[in-house]
């Protein structure tokens, strides 16, 4: 992490102009800036722990998430069942842990779909301009006019109910947001001098887009993707709550809330754990996204 790293070949290749007033970027500089913010480092720590729990779920969960115990239905918290049991006598804590990989994978799938569709379309629209840009921009405007959940429900209804389909639907719904952002960034970056220079040296369109424009347009996209992870998490919870997402007996947090809702009068405490898990995780993604925004934007850094 020395200053020599700044003039590495990769920096030159991406064509980032070196501004003498700016502190030279260092390796892990981004991570450092993020971690300097207390809230963000807590969010990062929480997400890492959650990820570890999610990956190790089958080994650390004290019970099976699907095995039913008719003798212990809606049991309160105990040493045996840390968070009690649900209406079928399944261990809530184990279901919560097993729900983590499912819920996280769903969020990542949705944001992945949104990126795969939105990023190239935004790049091309911004770079090519003309009728293509006009057409893409109108489509983006149109799709953003639909309330997101309503469009996602419509697409899920057509594709068929289920976690994967509903998350593909959410991804499709989020894609225009990313496409619009990438388009705007591309419009700015493509006018930069270094892009002109590359073109003069004979770089083709593909090379211009992939080597010169994309790396310099990507920062706000990373911020937006982090924020979208939170939105996707909430969308998964909503759709699973409505019965359009994950199907029983799989334990996503939204599906757990749907069951808790049915037994709300007898056992209102059933709704606490999954709800808190959703809230904390969404909060962590949002906090991390905001911290990244500040870290990546030099004009915000010293506020």
């Amino acid at each position, binding site marked *: 992490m020395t200053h020599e790293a700044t003039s590495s070949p990769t920096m030159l290749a991406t064509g980032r102009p070196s501004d003498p007033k700016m502190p030279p970027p260092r390796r892990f500089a981004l991570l450092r800036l993020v971690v300097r913010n207390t809230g963000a480092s807590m969010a990062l720590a929480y997400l890492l722990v959650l990820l570890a729990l999610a990956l190790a779920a089958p080994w650390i969960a004290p019970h099976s998430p699907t095995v039913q115990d008719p003798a212990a239905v809606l049991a309160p918290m105990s040493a045996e069942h840390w968070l009690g049991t649900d209406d079928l006598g399944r261990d809530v804590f184990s279901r919560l842990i097993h729900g983590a990989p499912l819920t996280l994978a769903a969020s990542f799938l949705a944001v992945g779909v949104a990126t795969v569709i939105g990023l190239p379309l935004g790049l091309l629209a911004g770079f090519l301009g003309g009728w293509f840009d006009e057409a893409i921009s109108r489509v983006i405007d149109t799709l953003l*006019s*639909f*309330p997101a959940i*309503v*469009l996602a*429900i419509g*697409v899920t*209804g057509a594709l068929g109910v289920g976690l994967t389909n509903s998350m593909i639907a959410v991804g499709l719904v989020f894609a225009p947001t990313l496409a619009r952002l990438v388009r705007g960034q591309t419009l700015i970056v493509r006018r930069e001098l270094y892009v002109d220079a590359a073109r003069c040296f004979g770089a083709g369109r593909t090379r211009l887009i992939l080597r010169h424009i994309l790396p310099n347009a990507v920062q706000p996209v990373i911020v937006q993707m982090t924020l979208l992870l939170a939105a996707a998490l909430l969308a998964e919870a909503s759709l699973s709550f409505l019965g359009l997402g994950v199907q029983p007996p799989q334990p996503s947090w939204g599906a757990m809330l749907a069951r808790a809702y049915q037994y709300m009068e007898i056992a209102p405490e059933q*709704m606490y754990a999954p709800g808190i898990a*959703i809230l904390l995780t969404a909060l962590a993604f949002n906090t991390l996204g905001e911290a990244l925004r500040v870290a990546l934007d030099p004009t915000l850094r010293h506020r």
Partner: protein
Amino acid sequence: MSTRSTLRLVLRRLVQMAPVVVLATFVVFALVQLIPGDIAITLAGEGVSEQRIAEIRRLYGLDRPFLLQYAHWLGDAVQGNLSVSLLSGEAVVESISRRLPNTLLIVSLALLISMVVGIPLGIAASVRPGSRLDGFVSVLGSLGIALPGFWLAMLLVAVFAMKLNWFPATGAKSLTEAPLSALHYATLPAIALAASGIAEVARQSRSALLEVMSSQYVRTLHAKGLPQRLVFWKHGLKNVSVTLLTVFGLLVNRMLGATVVIEAVFAIPGMGSLIVNAATGKDYPVVQGVMLTMVVIVIGLNLLIDILYTLFDPRVDAR
């Protein structure tokens, strides 16, 4: 601005909006094309005769070219005919007009709460940035955005309906038949819906106010000796109104979506339960009808906001 130029502006906006409306109807219609396999068989359900499938194909015009189908569907929709539900056989327009008022009541109430609570919070936070109050509003804002609205709804039901018995836990009443009772039923759902709205309004009005108050012309106002109170209330807030108009349009869109889940918690017979049941039951005409209604509401309101903008703020180019 003269009446004539206002009229010209409205017409220009309408013309600009037209492609988005047409595209939106196309999206709604084309959705059915996403259904894997033969749509006619899906629509007919399982275990029906070839004859019935052929009948369905004819009934929905599935034997015609796609664009012709679309033109036909659009023509019907413009005349207020959105086909009939596959499950209940009721005209889709009928079910929607029966349920839309319930949804609109909750959404309007939630919008009102968001503005009435959110704006003062934003103002209070912006007066002394970095103060304890500002920090509190900022935490509230982060929570409001990350909080699953339907979970908040469940918590509200558990406390205010089941434990304290202040509000009914489920259902809705017609505003025209029993206005007070309707408001009573709509209060909890509206609060659940408004949580994220309050957060958004507070956040946006805070940052808009901070920006205005640090601008050059506010400094000029100070320099010429205008008292701080007058600068803030007259010039600061006037500029924030434009931001709030934008936020309002955003919130309408978001709340029309969020209400779908909230309605499920309160078992309200609104647009939400209509589209959810239709999506699970593959009742595509109903799904399309609800989507179309919602997108038309959003686009229409945004058109209105766009026009208000130009009237409010002469800096916005009328082009």
